[in-house]
């Protein structure tokens, strides 16, 4: 077993709004190893992004991490001071966000934004930082990097901006890069370029990657392991290939069935998942998917524990109780 990089235990994050407590993440546990690529899939509002922000302690008022432990390289992140966290953010753990259009400050030159991060964490001079920024832009495949540094974000295309964001995010050789829907705002041809770039860099820099997306195709192509999130909980976890071939949770099954297949030219109707996701203001007591689940049973009114279906896979569904009953955590 490889070295454990990140361990999240029973993480709960809520937002305290005027209408009440919105429980965005309701008890999530997972581990990440050094150099691993972990996919997190789920629909909008499933708690993916909130979880990513929680890992970096970026939750802002009215949001709050209510409970849980986040252990980063053996140290508890939640016990750290803001100053200690700042030394980790962008340096050891870095982030790429969904929309490159708005991720860069529109009135500050690219070069300044990039060198700021390098100077902050690497303690180098301005000249050296600029040199490194040029190298980074080269690495992420941007032509004439010296000129780009003098440009403002609006002078560049979306794909270029996302490349620059990637360059910025890896500028301090982080050990973990969290990519929160990195390709959602880009068009399809650019999407694959960006993903290829990211996996190439991941190998070169030997960093772990958490890829958050609602695109199952992206996960299948890029990830080793995947978490399926729904209603602020992890529904199922396992290696990508097995999980997709043989889903153990009705929600995963539903997700896969709602994907278009073009394998053998047979036209097949897509099967959508009926209903809508649970209200996180008043989350259901039992399984969050029970309302939409075709296999719903009486027992589903009670929240299932995780059942280990094999050594690497677990699922939160009563269907697998009898199967691996004595194995549950």
């Amino acid at each position, binding site marked *: 077993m490889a070295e454990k990089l990140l361990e999240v235990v029973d993480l709960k994050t809520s937002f305290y709004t005027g209408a009440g407590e919105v429980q965005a993440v309701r008890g999530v546990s997972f581990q990440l190893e050094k150099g691993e690529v972990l996919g997190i899939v789920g629909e909008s509002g499933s708690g993916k992004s909130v979880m990513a922000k929680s890992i*970096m302690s*970026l939750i802002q008022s009215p949001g709050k991490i209510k409970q849980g432990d986040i252990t980063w390289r053996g140290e508890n992140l939640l016990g750290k001071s803001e100053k200690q966290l*700042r*030394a*980790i*953010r*962008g*340096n050891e753990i*870095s*982030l790429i*966000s969904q*929309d490159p259009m*708005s*991720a*860069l*400050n*529109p*009135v*500050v030159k690219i070069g300044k934004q990039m060198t*700021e*991060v390098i100077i*902050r*964490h690497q303690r180098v001079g301005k000249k050296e930082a600029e040199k490194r920024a040029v190298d980074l832009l080269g690495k992420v495949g941007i032509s004439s990097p010296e000129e780009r540094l003098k440009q*403002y974000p*609006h002078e560049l295309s979306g794909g270029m901006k996302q490349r620059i*964001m990637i360059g*910025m*995010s890896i500028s301090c050789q982080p050990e973990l890069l969290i990519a929160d829907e990195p390709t959602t705002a880009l068009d399809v041809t650019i999407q694959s370029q960006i993903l290829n770039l990211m996996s190439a860099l991941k190998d070169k820099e030997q960093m772990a990657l958490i890829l958050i997306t609602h695109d199952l195709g992206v996960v299948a192509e890029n990830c080793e392991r995947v978490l399926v999130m729904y209603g602020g909980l992890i529904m199922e976890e396992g290696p990508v290939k097995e999980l997709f071939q043989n889903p153990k949770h009705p929600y995963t099954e539903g997700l896969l069935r709602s994907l278009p297949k073009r394998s053998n030219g047979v036209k097949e109707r897509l099967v959508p998942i009926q209903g809508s996701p649970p209200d996180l203001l008043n989350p259901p007591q039992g399984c969050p998917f029970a309302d939409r689940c075709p296999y719903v049973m009486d027992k589903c009114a009670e929240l299932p524990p995780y059942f280990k279906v094999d050594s690497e896979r677990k699922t939160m569904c009563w269907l697998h109780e009898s199967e691996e009953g004595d194995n549950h955590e």
Partner: protein
Amino acid sequence: MKKVILKRFLNAIPLLFIISIIAFLLIKLAPGDPIQSFVTPDMNPDDVERMRKSLGLDQPIYMQYILWLQNILTGNFGYSIITKRPVLDMIIERIPATLGLMGASLLLSLIIAIPLGMITAVKKNTIFDRIANFFAYIGISIPGFWFGLMLIYVFSLQLGLLPSMGMRTVGTDSIWDVMKHGILPATVLAFQNISVYMRYIRSSTIRQLDEDYVQIQYAYGASKRHVLFNHVLRNVLLPVITIIGLSIPNLVGGAFITETVFSWPGLGLLGVTSIFSFDYPVIMAITLFSSVMLILGNLIADILYSVVDPRIRLRG
């Protein structure tokens, strides 16, 4: 860039032309015959008629306008009916007092409003924010002339700290003396602007703090302070340039009242006294001058905006 600025200037000319017509007509429509100020008891009706002719007041109104415009374009604003001095001289000697007062109040309002607006945004919904907002509402609601009188009552009459009127103490000639005289009027002029700017900067900062790039900055280890001053501030200041441009009319209008309350010897006071004494040439000159100031102010704001915001480039 230079070409664009020149073009903007040329565009302002028709506007000035229209304003000159309106200024001229308004005065013509106002009650009171200017000839009355020249009539002395020993003049007979023939003399009055001759006088009218020599002043060009017997001409049709459009001819009067053209004559007036011709004179103005050659720098001749006529003579004051009251003081018999050239209007241009009277205006020029008043300009420093008014510009100084406006500049001081603008500076004062920005120095107070920018930090206050940003702090209240960061401390949104705290007691500090609520108190600041309460005062902002008061600031917006209080009429300037009343506030001026109150300040005079407290600081000049009761405390005796600051002079209540004028710009200089007779016999002294120091900058400090002028500044002391300027504190109260500049405060009155600034008070309303502070409230408006502060609330504007507050809401603009709140909006900026929600932007993705702020989150990303935090994610790359930036401190709150760094994000606020190196990233948010710039974005917040951009629209402030526009509201400064837009608040120049307020300053000009406010100067009329404030200068009167404090007997500040600027253009506003000159304007008010001229209106009460039917000093038409002076009124028209001041109207024109204020308009030029407005147009120039907005033009400068326009140009400045395109200089500081890289996303906006002026096109001709």
